[in-house]
C-alpha cells in the first residue's frame, strides 16, 4: 500500500539526495534492441540482494504466485465483479455453504509438459490443510477429485467467506513434483513448475528474469520477459524511474500529480484502498488505560480534525473520503449503511460539537485551554514509526488542529519493530495505521478482521488484527450471521452490515482519518493495456499477487 511503502529509512533519505542528483546508469540497462523492448522491468521494492525463494506458500517468496503458479479464479479486489476463470471455469456452493463444486479447465499443461488435472487441485488443498505452517487462510475443508476436471470440497461449517481464499488465493502446484517434498514450508522451490503464463528463465541475487510460457493455455503473453530488479539499498524507485531503469513500481514519488511531466513516458494511477485511522486502545475491560478508552474522547477528536487541510499537508491530496462505518468508499459504496448518522466523515472541523462531547463526558476546560478531568489534562500519545514521513506530518498537523479543541496530542516516534510490537500487544493509547483489504471485493473481511472479538486479545497478549481491542456482542452476532449467507445475496447481508457499521460509528474504536491511495507509476510509452480508472481489471500494484499476472498478460509492447 502506498502510504506505507513510501517511507524509506531515515538513513536512506539522506543518501537518496546524492543518488537523485547523479542519475544512476548501469544496472540491467545493457540490453538493446527488440529483446529489451519486450522486456518489462518490475521493481517490487526489493532493496539489497534477493535470496532465492519461489515457494508460493512462503511468506518471503520473491515472486511466482499468479505468474508461475495460478489460482483457480482471479478475484479483483478493486471492484465487485464476477471472479475471472483461470484454472477453474465454474464453481457452485450448496445452499448452506458447506459444499463447493469446482469445474476445472481441460487441456492445461504444467510447464514441464505434465497434464494438469483435478488430482493436482485436491493434492494442493490437502497439503495446505495438513501443513499448518503454510495454511495462511484457515482452510479446513476436504477436497476430493471426482474426475479429471471436477473437485468437490466439503467444509465442516458454512464457509461462503472462505471461497475467495480457496478459489482465489490458493496457488495450485503439480502433484508429481510436490508429493516428493517432505516439508513444503521449508523448500525454496529453486526450479518452479506451474501452469502460469511465465516460467523462470534465470536467477541472480541482484535480478531474476521470467520468460513467457509458450505453452500457456491462454496463449503466449505478448510481454516476452519480465525482469525483477533489486535496487541497491539507498537508491529509490523514483531515481530508477527517472533513469528509465524500471517500467513499473508501486509507491509514491515526490510531486505525484505531475508524474507525466517529471518522468516523460510514464503515467501514475492512484487507487483508494486503505482506511487510515487513529487506532485507539479502546477497551478498558481488556486492559486498555487512558482517556482514549472513553468513546466521547475518540469522537471529540473525530470532529476536531480538519480533513481537507490534512489531505493537502500530509498526503499531497491523494487521499480521499472515508466512512465512519469503515466501508471502503468507491468499491463498496453500495454497502454503506443508510442508517449511519454520517455517511462520510466530516471534512471540516466542528469544534463546538467536539467540546459538547467532552463536556458531556465530565471534562472541563482548564486555564491553559486544555480540557481536563479529575485534575488530569486531556493528553494522548500517538505512536508512529520513525521515518514514516507522511504519517508524521499527519500527526503534526492533527496536533495543531486539535489544540483549539482543547485536546493535546503527543507524537511518539518509535522504531518500526517497536511500533509493530506495541500495536499487537496493545501497549499504546493511539497509533496511526491503515486497514488492509481481504481476498475479494467484500466489506465483510475488514469488518471481521478489525471489529470482531475473535481477532482480539487482552492487553499484553497478541491481538491480530483487531488492535483496538474492540468487542461488541451485537457486532459479533451480525458477523457470524453473514458467514452463513452466500456473498451474492446482497439484500440478505445488508441488515447485518448495517448493525456493524452503526455500532462502529457509535463506539468509534478506530478514529477515521481518510482513505489512503496506492499509487503506481508505469511506463506507458513502452507498454499499453495498463489498468485505468475506467478499466480497473486488476489492482495495479506491482506487489499485489495474483493481480500482477493479470496485468502482465494484458500488456502489449508499443508498436507491435
Amino acid at each position, binding site marked *: 500500500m502506498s502510504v*506505507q*511503502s513510501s517511507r524509506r*529509512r531515515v*538513513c536512506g533519505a539522506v*543518501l537518496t539526495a*546524492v*543518488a537523485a*542528483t*547523479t542519475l*544512476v546508469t*548501469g*544496472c*540491467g540497462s*545493457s540490453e538493446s534492441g527488440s529483446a529489451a523492448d519486450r522486456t518489462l522491468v518490475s521493481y517490487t*521494492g526489493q*532493496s*539489497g*540482494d534477493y*535470496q*532465492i525463494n519461489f515457494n508460493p506458500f*512462503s*511468506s*518471503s517468496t520473491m515472486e511466482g504466485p499468479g505468474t508461475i503458479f495460478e489460482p483457480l479464479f482471479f478475484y479483483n479486489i478493486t471492484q465487485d465483479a464476477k471472479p475471472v476463470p483461470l484454472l477453474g471455469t465454474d464453481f457452485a456452493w450448496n445452499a448452506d455453504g458447506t459444499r463447493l463444486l469446482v469445474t476445472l479447465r481441460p487441456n492445461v499443461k504444467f510447464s514441464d509438459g505434465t497434464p494438469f488435472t483435478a488430482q493436482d487441485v485436491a493434492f494442493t488443498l490437502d497439503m495446505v490443510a495438513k501443513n*499448518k*505452517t503454510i495454511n*495462511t487462510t*484457515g482452510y479446513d475443508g476436504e477436497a476430493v477429485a471426482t474426475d479429471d476436471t471436477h473437485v468437490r470440497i466439503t467444509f465442516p461449517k458454512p464457509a461462503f467467506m472462505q471461497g475467495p481464499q480457496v478459489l482465489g*488465493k490458493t496457488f495450485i502446484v503439480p502433484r508429481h513434483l510436490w508429493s516428493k517434498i517432505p516439508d513444503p*514450508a*521449508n523448500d*525454496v522451490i529453486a526450479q518452479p513448475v506451474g501452469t502460469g503464463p511465465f516460467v523462470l528463465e534465470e536467477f*541472480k*541475487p*541482484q*535480478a531474476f528474469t521470467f520468460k513467457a510460457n509458450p505453452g500457456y493455455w491462454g496463449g503466449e503473453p505478448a510481454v516476452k520477459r519480465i525482469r525483477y530488479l533489486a535496487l*541497491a*539499498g*539507498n*537508491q529509490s524507485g523514483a531515481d530508477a524511474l527517472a533513469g528509465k531503469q524500471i517500467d513499473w513500481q508501486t509507491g509514491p514519488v515526490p510531486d505525484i500529480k505531475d508524474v507525466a511531466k517529471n518522468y516523460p513516458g510514464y503515467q501514475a494511477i492512484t487507487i483508494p484502498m486503505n482506511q487510515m485511522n487513529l487506532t485507539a486502545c479502546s477497551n478498558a475491560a481488556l486492559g486498555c488505560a487512558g482517556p482514549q478508552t472513553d468513546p466521547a474522547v475518540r469522537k471529540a477528536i473525530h470532529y476536531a480534525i480538519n480533513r481537507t487541510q490534512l489531505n493537502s499537508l500530509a498526503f499531497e491530496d491523494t487521499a480521499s473520503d472515508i466512512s465512519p462505518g469503515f466501508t471502503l468508499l468507491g468499491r463498496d459504496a453500495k454497502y454503506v449503511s443508510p442508517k449511519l448518522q454520517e455517511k462520510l466523515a466530516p471534512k471540516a472541523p466542528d469544534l463546538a460539537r467536539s467540546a459538547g462531547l467532552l463536556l458531556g463526558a465530565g471534562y472541563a476546560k482548564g486555564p491553559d485551554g486544555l480540557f481536563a478531568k479529575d485534575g488530569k489534562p486531556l493528553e494522548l500519545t500517538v505512536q508512529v514509526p520513525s521515518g514514516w514521513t507522511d504519517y508524521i506530518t499527519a500527526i503534526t498537523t492533527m496536533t495543531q488542529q486539535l489544540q483549539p479543541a482543547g485536546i493535546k496530542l503527543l507524537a511518539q516516534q518509535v522504531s*518500526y*519493530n*517497536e511500533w*509493530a*510490537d506495541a*500495536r*499487537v500487544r496493545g501497549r499504546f493509547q493511539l497509533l496511526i495505521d491503515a486497514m*488492509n*483489504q*481481504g481476498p475479494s471485493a467484500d466489506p465483510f*473481511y475488514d469488518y471481521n*478482521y*478489525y471489529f470482531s472479538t*475473535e481477532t482480539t486479545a487482552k492487553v499484553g497478549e*497478541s491481538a*491480530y*488484527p483487531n488492535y483496538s481491542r474492540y468487542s461488541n456482542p451485537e457486532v459479533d452476532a451480525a458477523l457470524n450471521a453473514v458467514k452463513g449467507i452466500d456473498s451474492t445475496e446482497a439484500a440478505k447481508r445488508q441488515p447485518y452490515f448495517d448493525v456493524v457499521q452503526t455500532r462502529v460509528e457509535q463506539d468509534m474504536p478506530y478514529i477515521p482519518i481518510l482513505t489512503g491511495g*496506492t499509487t503506481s507509476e508505469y511506463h506507458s510509452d513502452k507498454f499499453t493495456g495498463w489498468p485505468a480508472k475506467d478499466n480497473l481489471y486488476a*489492482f495495479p*500494484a506491482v506487489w*499485489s499477487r495474483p493481480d500482477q499476472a493479470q496485468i502482465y498478460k494484458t500488456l502489449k509492447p508499443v508498436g507491435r
Partner: protein
Amino acid sequence: MSYYLRKLAFYLVALWAALTLDFFILRLLPGNPVDVLLAKLAQRGGAPDPSVRRAYELLLGTHSDEPLWSQYVSYLDRLRHGDLGVSVSVFPAKVSDVIAQALPWTLVLVGIATLLSFVLGVGLGVIVGWKRGTWLDALVPGTTVLAAVPYFWLALLLAALLAGALGWFPLLGGYDVALDPGWNADFIGSAVYHGTLPALTIVVSSVGGWLLGMRNMMVSTGSEDYVLTAQAKGLRDGRVMLRYAARNAVLPSVAGFAISLGFVVSGSIVTEQVFAYPGIGSKLLQAVQNNDYALMQGIFLIITVAVLGANLVIDLLYGLIDARTRARA
C-alpha cells in the same frame, strides 16, 4: 607451554562470554519476528487474516513457551555442531548460506582496502618521519583531516564527485547485474570496477592514522644511537631509513594491522550502505530491521571469532618473538 595453555583458556572463556552476550542482548530488542513479518506483508497489501499469524508463529517456532534458559542451552548445543539456524528475514534460507553469500564481498573489499591503507600509510609515514621539517610535514594534518571528516560524508562527497559528476565509477552495487557471477573475466572485471570507489573511500579516510603512528615512531627511532652509528659509517641515507630506522619503527604498526585484520570480517556497515555493496554489513542491517535473531547471532559469531582469532595469533606470535611477554612478573 603453560603460557600457551593459559592463553588458549583465556580465549575460550572470552568466546563463551561473547556468545552468551550475543544470545541475551538480542532478545532484549523490542518486537518479534512474526510481527515484523506481518507488518511487512501488510505493507504489501496482504490480507490481515488471523490464520496468517497462526501459520507464521508455527513456521518460525516463536509460539513456543520454552523458557529463555533452555533456548540458550539448545543454542549453544546447535553451535557446537556448527548449526547457525535458519534466517527469518529470508526464510527458509540457512544463516550459514546467507553469510557465505555475503562474506566474500566484504573480505575482498575491506581486506584489500585495509591492506592498501596500511601499506600506503606506513610507507608515507616512513618518508615523512625521516624527512621531518620539510614540506612533507603537511601530509600529517592533511590526512588526519580526511580521517576526522565523518566517513559517510566523505564517502557521499567522493561518490557525488567521482561517480556522479565525473562518471568514472558506478555509483552503486557490487557488479553489473547483466553478468553471471563466477570466475570469468567479465564478472571479475566488473566486480573490481564496482569495488574501486568504495575501497578508495576507506583508504582515504583511514590512511591518516597509519601515517601518523608510523611517522611518530620514525621520529623517535631516528634519534637512536644505532641510526647515528649507521649514518656515521657512511651508509646511504635510503638504506639507513629503510633497513635501520623503519624496520624497528614498524613493529607497533604491524601489531595494529594484525588486529585490524580481525575487524575486516565485520566489514564496514556505512560503506556498504552508501554504495549498496552486497556484503556482511548490509546483511547485519537487514537482520536488525527484521528481528532476525539467528542471522544477527551468526554474523556476530563470525565477527567475534575473527577478532579473537586475530588477537590470539598476535599474542602467540609475540610470545614467540619476545620472551619478555612470556615471563611472569
